[in-house]
């Protein structure tokens, strides 16, 4: 009973944290603003047309990455899984880059989700029986290299320098200059992906027992797998289509949340989404406030912070015998 109450407390706290981060994002930025709710034209333009869409996009992208990370970890029984590590984001970026390169910009989101789906299908098929976190991460690295190589090829043969700069910027991952339409796009993929993922929650719990015993207690593993693959592809594909490649949120969010709500994969889903959203909004505030000449890209910042965190988690797992 106390466990249950604890969960609601964590949800409330993470929701409050998300709202506080969003508020801070309206208030803080390179241009000082005393009162973000002031009604002068300048403030309104900056706060409502620049900062709000950007902050909302960051939150929705972070939530999608946190949620898909938690779901992929449950499915593959591996705390290092996430859409970045497993190559879903890389493939999504490739899909979008191909759509860009061939001049079908409007289809970039669909292409991103389709490619993320291909990667998710591939990685779960290959990684389903992979024992231990390391082997799965290696499969992901393989997919990432594949996607990275193709993106490099697309950049290499892109004749238009303007488009090239856009593409490069975007593969680094950023929510700079995003509009409400972008936020809506990320939001709608999050809603669809989230619905699929939450429908898989009980199956993810059952997988705690391993494949055979999960099936023996009555779990339909094909259904669970299909739901998570589709849901994670929608979340990661949508997030990448809007914000480019942003890694490690999907590993870090569930990792931090476990310390608060325990290891039950179903109970991790919602808090991981909230934590991922809050984390990315905070990270985006940080890159906006850092006094660099060119704004640090959010995806780069995430990698700078997330890379070491990832290595730490991996090292702790390895020291425990690894097969967690």
């Amino acid at each position: 009973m106390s466990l249950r109450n604890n969960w609601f407390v964590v949800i409330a706290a993470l929701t409050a944290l998300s709202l506080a981060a969003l508020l801070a994002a309206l208030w803080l930025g390179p241009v000082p603003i005393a009162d973000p709710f002031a009604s002068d034209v300048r403030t309104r333009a900056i706060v409502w047309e620049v900062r709000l869409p950007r902050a909302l996009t960051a939150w929705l992208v972070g939530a999608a990455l946190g949620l898909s990370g938690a779901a992929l970890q449950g499915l593959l029984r591996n705390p290092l899984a996430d859409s970045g590590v497993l190559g879903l984001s890389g493939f999504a970026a490739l899909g979008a880059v191909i759509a860009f390169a061939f001049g079908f910009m409007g289809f970039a989101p669909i292409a991103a989700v389709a490619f993320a789906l291909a990667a998710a299908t591939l990685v779960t098929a290959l990684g389903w029986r992979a024992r231990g976190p390391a082997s799965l991460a290696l499969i992901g690295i393989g997919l990432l290299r594949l996607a990275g190589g193709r993106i490099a090829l697309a950049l290499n043969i892109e004749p238009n320098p303007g488009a090239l700069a856009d593409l490069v910027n975007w593969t680094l991952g950023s929510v700079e200059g995003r509009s409400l339409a972008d936020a809506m796009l990320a939001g709608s993929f999050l809603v669809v992906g989230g619905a699929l993922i939450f429908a898989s929650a009980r199956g993810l719990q059952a997988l705690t027992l391993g494949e055979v015993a999960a099936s023996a207690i009555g779990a339909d593993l094909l259904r669970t797998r299909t739901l998570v693959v589709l849901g994670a592809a929608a979340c990661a594909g949508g997030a990448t289509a809007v914000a480019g490649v942003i890694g490690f949120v999907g590993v870090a969010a569930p990792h931090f949340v476990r310390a608060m709500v325990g290891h039950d994969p179903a109970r991790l889903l919602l808090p991981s989404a909230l934590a991922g959203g809050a984390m990315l909004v905070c990270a985006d505030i940080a890159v906006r406030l850092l006094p660099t000449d060119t704004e640090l890209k959010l995806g780069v910042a995430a990698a700078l912070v997330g890379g070491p965190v990832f290595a730490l988690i991996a090292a702790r797992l390895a020291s425990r015998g690894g097969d967690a």
Partner: protein
Amino acid sequence: MSALLCYERAALELGERRVLADFSLAVGAGEIVALLGPNGAGKTSVLRAGLGLIPLASGAVRLGEDDPRALSARARALRAAYLPQHPQAIWPLSVEALIALGRYAHGGAPDRLGPRDQAAVDAAIQTCGLGALRARRMDEISGGEKLRVHLARTLAQEAPLLMLDEPSAGLDPAQALGVAEILQAHAKRGAAVLFSTHDVALAAHAAHRVAVMAQGRLLAEGAPEAALTPEVLEQAYGKRGRLERVGSGYAAVFEAQSLNRPA
């Protein structure tokens, strides 16, 4: 008495290897049947084929009236609970949450237990003597305790048939006998139990019938004292052995060749 589980001349191949051949056995309500045999005799395959987890090459398995492979996972789980040989808890849930996973087929989940589910979980915890551990995490308890938690999880499933792959592996003698008592109490309430073990005495003690296997075939089947003859034991294990009555229980003794002990 209609059988809850029935094998009719079942044969099974894994790759090139024949794992089961001409295997027939029936387990009825209220009955405990022990599967004995050396490593690789096919005991695990019998259990997995009974659950429909692996397809037969020929012959038939019936779970109740049906081919288990034609049943949905949920329908199967309502008829039979399974304890695998090396049960896993990949995420360190609490003991109670892990046992609650047994309620999956009834619609229950660790974070969503109806009164009926909670009662089944509580009963399983009590039966397996896990009351003091229920809030502990799975990575904070001993190997023997883990096995008992997984046994409790199969009991909480409230299926009429229990299929247990070495439920006493790694347990000390007193704990192993404790498992035997749990199974007997469960069978008295009408459940059927099929379990594999390497503990010949425990099989004789706990089971109404034993089935001795070697190389995928049934060597002998029947009441423990009748089936576990020195000939059958030698044929199964390659060592001369016998089953002895000790008090109200049994001991199994195998002849060891004289070892070269230092003088």
